[in-house]
């Protein structure tokens, strides 16, 4: 086929990836700075926010849909991330920011995006007045809005862990669960607690537009666990060196598609291209599972011995392949291991192969953390805070991003299953350790930043 540079076989490979292996652009996310929207009068500030978002993102959905059609690559989500709201709302003379969340929700609905991220605060070292107001507004804000996502960064390798924030977030998660108990505590699925949060992540629920970012950017998140799974299945007996090469080549191809879509979206919208985030983000669809990849690598069930090593290899190979394919890789880039969104993970939990302790170990080598895990509604705030502290410690010491998106499902206990529906999937309620962490959590203050040398 001399006229197009790709061969017939390559053309069919691309088609197969999309048609049969669920290759898709998971999200095109427009990052918008709201730093110029603060005002002492909250009503004025909210109007400025609404006007700016609806102006900048006016054509986001329509242009993304056109690209989707012309290139034949599905773009599953179109989203927006904004400057952490605590910094914008802080100038206003009020102490609850629920109305700011509502204005984000309204703007998201107006431009047709399914999520808007940035009801956020960065408190790894301490709280400002605005940070505290924002955090305390989260439960009500998430209950009274549909598309708003919240995130709070409580720790970093440079600053240590803000244990006061960790305890506060334990209580906030409980309260968010209570406020949304009619929907199986769904509010908590829109709330992430981070350590070392990236400021250019396009994936929800943790996306926001960092303070060092430009006025407006396009970030793209691409995903394809099914494509990687099928590539691995074709090589059932090769050694790890060769297997890593197979994953790298596949990740490269997937990322190229994201790069193409990102550049095209950026030029059509007249907005600079920020970063490409190559993350293996599973969905409940059959075959679109990170757990299936781990099992294809050779563990009988995700969670058994060897799982952490398999995940480490996968995560690293995905990054290596993706980095060469794009001019700017950023965000989280790696493998996500959400439980409820991955049919293979759910099964592994149900047969008893996977528990919260193993998941915690896996987060040492995956791209994020404890994600979409349902726990009993009766779990104490102090226990949730201690789970956050453990995850933060892993991120802080290993200089990586970690996160906790955990759902204490009010009224449910171990043995029951909660159905969130759609991309959020379903989750068996997982047991937590029955012993108390209360005295530990109640010490408060900050865990000092770790040494950056003597890494043994």
């Amino acid at each position, binding site marked *: *086929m*001399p*006229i*197009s*540079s*790709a*061969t*017939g076989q*390559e*053309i*069919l*490979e*691309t*088609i197969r990836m999309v*048609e049969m292996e669920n290759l898709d652009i998971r999200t095109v996310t427009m990052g918008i700075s709201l730093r110029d929207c603060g005002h002492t009068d909250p009503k004025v500030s909210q109007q400025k926010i609404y006007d700016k978002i609806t102006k900048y993102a006016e054509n986001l959905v329509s242009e993304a849909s*056109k690209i989707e*059609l*012309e*290139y*034949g*690559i599905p773009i599953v989500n179109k989203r927006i991330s904004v400057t952490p709201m605590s910094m914008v709302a802080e100038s206003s003379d009020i102490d609850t920011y629920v109305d700011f969340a509502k204005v984000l929700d309204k703007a998201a609905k107006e431009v047709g995006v399914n999520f808007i991220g940035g009801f956020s605060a960065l408190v790894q070292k301490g709280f400002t007045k605005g940070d505290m107001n924002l955090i305390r507004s989260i439960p009500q804000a998430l209950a009274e809005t549909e598309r708003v996502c919240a995130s709070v960064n409580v720790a970093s390798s440079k600053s240590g862990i803000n244990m006061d924030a960790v305890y506060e977030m334990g209580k906030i998660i409980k309260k968010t669960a209570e406020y949304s108990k009619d929907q199986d505590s769904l509010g908590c699925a829109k709330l992430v607690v981070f350590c070392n949060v990236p400021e250019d992540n396009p994936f929800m629920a943790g996306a926001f537009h960092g303070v060092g970012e430009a006025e407006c950017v396009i970030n793209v998140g691409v995903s394809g666990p099914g494509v990687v799974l099928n590539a691995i299945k074709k090589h059932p007996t090769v050694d790890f060196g060769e297997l890593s090469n197979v994953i790298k080549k596949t990740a490269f*191809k997937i990322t*190229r*598609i994201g*790069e*193409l879509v990102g550049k095209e979206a950026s030029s059509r919208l007249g907005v600079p291209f920020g970063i490409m985030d190559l993350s293996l983000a599973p969905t409940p669809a059959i075959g679109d599972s990170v757990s299936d990849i781990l099992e294809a690598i050779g563990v009988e069930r995700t969670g058994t011995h060897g799982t952490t090593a398999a995940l480490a290899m996968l995560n690293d190979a995905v990054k290596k392949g993706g980095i060469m394919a794009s001019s700017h890789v950023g965000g989280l880039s790696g493998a996500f291991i959400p439980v409820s969104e991955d049919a293979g993970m759910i099964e592994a939990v149900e047969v008893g192969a996977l528990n919260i302790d193993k998941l915690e170990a896996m987060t040492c080598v995956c791209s994020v953390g404890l994600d979409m895990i349902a726990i009993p509604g009766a779990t104490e705030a102090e226990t949730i805070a201690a789970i956050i502290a453990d995850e933060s410690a892993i991120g802080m010491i290993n200089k990586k991003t970690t996160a906790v998106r955990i759902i204490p499902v009010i009224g449910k206990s171990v043995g029951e299953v909660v159905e969130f529906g759609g991309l959020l999937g379903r989750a068996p309620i997982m047991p937590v350790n029955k012993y108390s962490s209360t005295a530990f959590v109640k010490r408060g203050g900050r865990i000092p930043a770790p040494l950056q040398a003597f890494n043994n």
Partner: protein
Amino acid sequence: MKDNKAIVTVLGQDQVGIISTLTNILAESDVNILDISQTILQDYFTMIMVVDVSKCKVGFGELKQSLLEAGEKIGLQVNAQKSEVFDFMHRI
């Protein structure tokens, strides 16, 4: 390196009239065919056409829709995509 080429792929059971059905639609819209190749892959009829859409009288979406619908009527899966997708994925 933007050009106006698109790739039309056809997958399904071999039968009489596949090419004529699709090329009629292309001709009506002033789309020139640059190359055609066809093979039988694992019992599946597979055809790839490289076409020039620079003079196309209808929008790309509309063209794609008519090809898709014509394909569906005779039980074929038809795809039309801008050619950059393939070049970008498989060439550095």
